[in-house]
């Protein structure tokens, strides 16, 4: 064994001691997971707080309220107009159908009267309409 080898042995020994496999203490995993969760919640809270903090300014808060109100009013008016148009259209359709029914009933009346006339008139004498009589 050389001099250098003798000097290396204590170093090697100390390294081996430092790097030797050692099991984690009991509950270590749970502690790590709990800390990670805490950090996650804290980050989310911070994010939420920063988003809501926009409304801490009165101007922005009232602008948002006004925008929502305007949207609701416009939506309401649009819906009401749609409903009114539909009701008017249905009324117009009823009028149209009524007009067609009246026209139909009067044509029916005319047809009945014409039929009455045709049935009340005597049949024309076919003998008088022979080709000889025409000449």
């Amino acid at each position, binding site marked *: 064994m050389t001099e250098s080898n003798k000097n290396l042995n204590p170093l090697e020994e100390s390294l081996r001691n430092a790097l030797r496999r050692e099991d984690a203490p009991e509950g270590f995993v749970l502690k790590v997971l709990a800390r990670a969760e805490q950090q996650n919640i804290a980050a989310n809270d911070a994010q939420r707080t920063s988003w809501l903090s926009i409304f801490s300014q009165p101007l922005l808060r009232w602008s948002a309220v006004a925008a929502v109100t305007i949207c609701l009013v416009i939506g309401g008016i649009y819906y009401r107009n749609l409903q009114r148009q539909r009701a008017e259209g249905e009324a117009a359709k009823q009028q149209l159908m009524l007009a067609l029914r009246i026209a*139909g009933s009067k044509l029916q009346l005319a047809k009945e009267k014409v039929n009455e006339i045709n049935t009340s008139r005597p049949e024309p004498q076919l003998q008088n309409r022979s080709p000889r009589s025409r000449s």
Partner: protein
Amino acid sequence: MSTLTRKLVPLILLLAFPAILRAQDMKLPPGVEKLASKAKETVEVNMDGPMLHWASKFLSAEDPEERKAAKLVANLKGIYVRSYEFSDEGAYSAADVEEVRAQFRSPEWSRVVGVRSERDGDNVDIFFKLENEKMAGIVIISAEAKELTFVNIVGPLEVDQLADLGGEFGIPKLKTKPQSSKPMAKADKGEQK
């Protein structure tokens, strides 16, 4: 309503009224116009082209009656109906009705049916308007004892479409095959005595 709107509305109506009258072939005399006050029941339908097309958008394609109606009104320019139902006989003047009939004694109109019934007092006249040998309108004047009805359908009305109505709305399938205005005039059924 603002003052400006209040002034504009009558003005718009005044301007629109002659246009409505022009679209309608039939002009009712003042005597007929006043009948609404005497009538037990009055029906007044004034539908011009845009109104007809708008109304037809609401006709259901699933309902066979409404589907045929939509097809019929597709090319029409207007439908005008006045119908008065009275409680008693003699509520209207025969001269007023004759005045309306006289409007259709022009070459462009053909009286295809004219019924005079002295028995029950029912008089019905049907006039067809022909343009380029095609039907361009129909007028029905029905003067019954207790009912007076004027129907004016304006626009290109195919005879087939009219016949199509036979199964619907109680309209009969009329045997009308117009070749020219003269044969139509001969189709006049005359008077019942």
